[in-house]
């Protein structure tokens, strides 16, 4: 804002109307700015802004706050993803060019009213999609629990120590195809049948950072690891 002497003597109403008038003129000058860098900055800025509106309103909606205004912010953001760049990379430059070169009455009308037509179409699409949302526009951020991927495999590994040997068993065997026990980079035991009990000798275990340790992996039929347990010999209770 430039502050002239007139501001000092203006009534609050005059001052406000001058500020609003200046803001409106600034907005128009930004809207119609047509250099390559302006086109790019406006297009990318609106793309990011649209993305922000779309995702943020989707997020709040998916948590169950069903405010009508959020539905329209969501559709505004979604449409803006395409319409922001379209407006400032295509429509505005085209309208400005037509204002200079249009000769037929139809083209002259488009040149004069192009931006209004474009904004009207944009707002109409926003209102329609806000009222009747389409699939791709709605993201659900609530965690989904899906059936069909097998039950939750999470048994306890229970181990005891005696006479230089370590004996372990699982609290459940469901959903496990086989169990592999490794120490360092060596496989020391593999169990293919339930209930997947095993006994290993302490002197078979490699020392890692000063501790004898072993790793027990529960695997499915494809050899993918379902659960992994790391145990230190020194922390296993004696029988």
């Amino acid at each position, binding site marked *: 804002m430039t502050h002239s002497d007139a501001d000092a003597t203006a009534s609050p109403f005059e001052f406000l109307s001058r500020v609003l008038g200046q803001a409106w003129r600034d907005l128009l000058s930004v809207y119609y700015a047509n250099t390559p860098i302006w086109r790019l900055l406006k297009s990318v800025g609106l793309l990011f802004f649209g993305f*922000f509106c779309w995702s943020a309103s989707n997020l709040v909606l998916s948590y169950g706050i069903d405010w009508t205004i959020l539905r329209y912010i969501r559709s505004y953001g979604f449409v803006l993803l395409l319409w922001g760049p379209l407006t400032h990379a295509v429509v505005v430059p085209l309208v400005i060019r037509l204002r200079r070169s249009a000769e037929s009455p139809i083209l002259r009308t488009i040149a004069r009213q192009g931006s209004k037509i474009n904004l009207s179409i944009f707002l109409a699409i926003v209102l329609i999609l806000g009222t009747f949302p389409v699939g791709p526009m709605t993201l659900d*951020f609530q965690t989904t629990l899906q059936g069909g991927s097998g039950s939750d495999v999470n048994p306890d590994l229970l181990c005891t120590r005696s006479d230089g040997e370590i004996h372990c068993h699982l609290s459940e065997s469901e959903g496990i195809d086989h169990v592999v026990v490794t120490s360092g980079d060596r496989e020391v035991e593999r169990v293919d049948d339930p209930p997947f009990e095993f006994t290993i000798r302490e002197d078979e275990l490699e020392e890692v950072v000063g501790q004898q340790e072993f790793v027990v992996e529960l695997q499915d039929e494809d050899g993918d690891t379902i659960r992994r347990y790391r145990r230190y010999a020194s922390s296993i209770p004696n029988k």
Partner: protein
Amino acid sequence: MAHKLDVLGLFDNEYRDDGFRTCSVTGLEVHRSVDNHVKLFGLTAVVALLYGGIFAFTVAMTRWEVIGLLGADAFYTHLSLHAWNLLIFWMVFMEVAILYVGGPMVLGRRLPLTRIAKAGWAVMVGGAVLVNYAIWTTEAPNEAPLLTAYVPMPISPLFYAGACVFILGTVVAALPFFVSMWREKRENPGKTLPLVSFAAFVTSIIAVEALVGGLLAFGPALLWRLELIQWWDAAWYRQMYWIIGHGTQQINLVAMIAVWYFLTHVVAGAEVVSEKVSRTAFILYLFFINLGAAHHLLSDPAVSTGWRIWNTSYAFYGATFASLIHAFAIPAGIEAGRRKRGKGGGLFGWLTSAPWSNPVFSSTIFSIILFGFLGGITGVMMGQLQLNMTWHNTFATVGHFHGTVVLGTTVAFMGLAFFVIRTMFMRQYVSERLASIQPFFYSAAMGVAVLMMMYVGILYGIPRRTSEVVENIPGTEFSLSAASPLFAIFGIFALLAIVGGVLFVLVAVGSLVFGDRVENGDNADLIADGGLGMAQDPDDPVHAYEMRGTFVLCLIFLAAFVITYLLNWYLLTQLWSIGA
């Protein structure tokens, strides 16, 4: 006379008999010793960028599980190499170069102790090679360290040794900078340092704090791995480690802001709106920014709630306040400086009439905007005790530091590299068009990739540092497959960003090898609007000019900040209804 090893003539400029030359762009007196050492560290940094960038491809293509490039073991090794080469080696080599620019170059001095500088470089390279070798040759029972290398994780002692060597090398390489600052103050006791030198000095102090923290973490861990000591306290290690773990990123931040002040002044004609205010902001960084590292311990035992709240609220806001000061001061400086030259034109004319085709300018501006909106806002949020709960160890954290270290620091350093190619290596870009496009392409692609990282992390709870969660969490009914569409966008834009990174390396290296040599007067296009001669009254005070464009931009930034903040708090309130 070029050195016999200098086959490409990269270290060969024309100097006067006293070893100095006058830079036609900055007007600074640059000594041969400064030129050559900035080039040495800068080139090494670009090699690290190239090497770490290769792993950006393998890591991103693993996280995009439709491709699923690597298995779990290889993924962790590749992720470690990606982290160390980009987050540490690319950054730190470049930062030493920035210290030499901000110190002796801006002050018009020769670089003292050049042998020490070279020795520092050699030790740093040795440490970097050792760290890379240790990670590559990781085999069971050892694990790849990633960046954190937490005790008591079994990690190769070679890695800890390499990290210590690299840290010591960095301290050695920084010594010539400290000596030149010392001599400057001894010779001119009553004279204030230029703002960029002051910023570099603050950076160096923060760097020393961080490096000492690193030695306190990695040193005992090395002794423990060599079994010279029996045991090391994991909680103590973590607290010491994060002094360097996040401290290095604070060095990146302050160095980046020094680069912002330097490059906006040189290529955009920015003035400093208020020296005192900008310096105060740097002082705030000095006291508070390293305390922000505490947010890494918010989900850990062993530190009290009072300690957490002090460090991540009160203290950290001191650093945030400093960042917000710079966020206004730098664009306002550009606006006032350009209006003074008659380049105003309405609300944003000063910005849009700026030299956008100059990659030095566009890199700097994108760095400012993207660091602020994506890296800065998220950093302040997740560095807070309460909001951290929804961010901690999710992929959104990775999004945050790609917003700061990549979109902020890396993009700014790329701009600096473009500047150094033209003004120190004296080479024209091998392709003006490609050089102009690169910052736009890279920043836009990386911007979207970073947004997606944050989205899948914060909205779906996708964890970080894991190779397979969306397609398959074996043995559970829990599914994250709803995040697949956003991961697809992430994967595509990560690839595009890597293409943008490759483009940078091609343009940079191509310009050095094939670019035409800059002759007298060829760099005139880099000088902002032809210099201050354009201004009607060059001596006008800066506050005689409007800064309303910057004010509006800051209001938009503030609005984004407030809305994002509110949304995150809302998310937090919903946290306890998970699974309900």
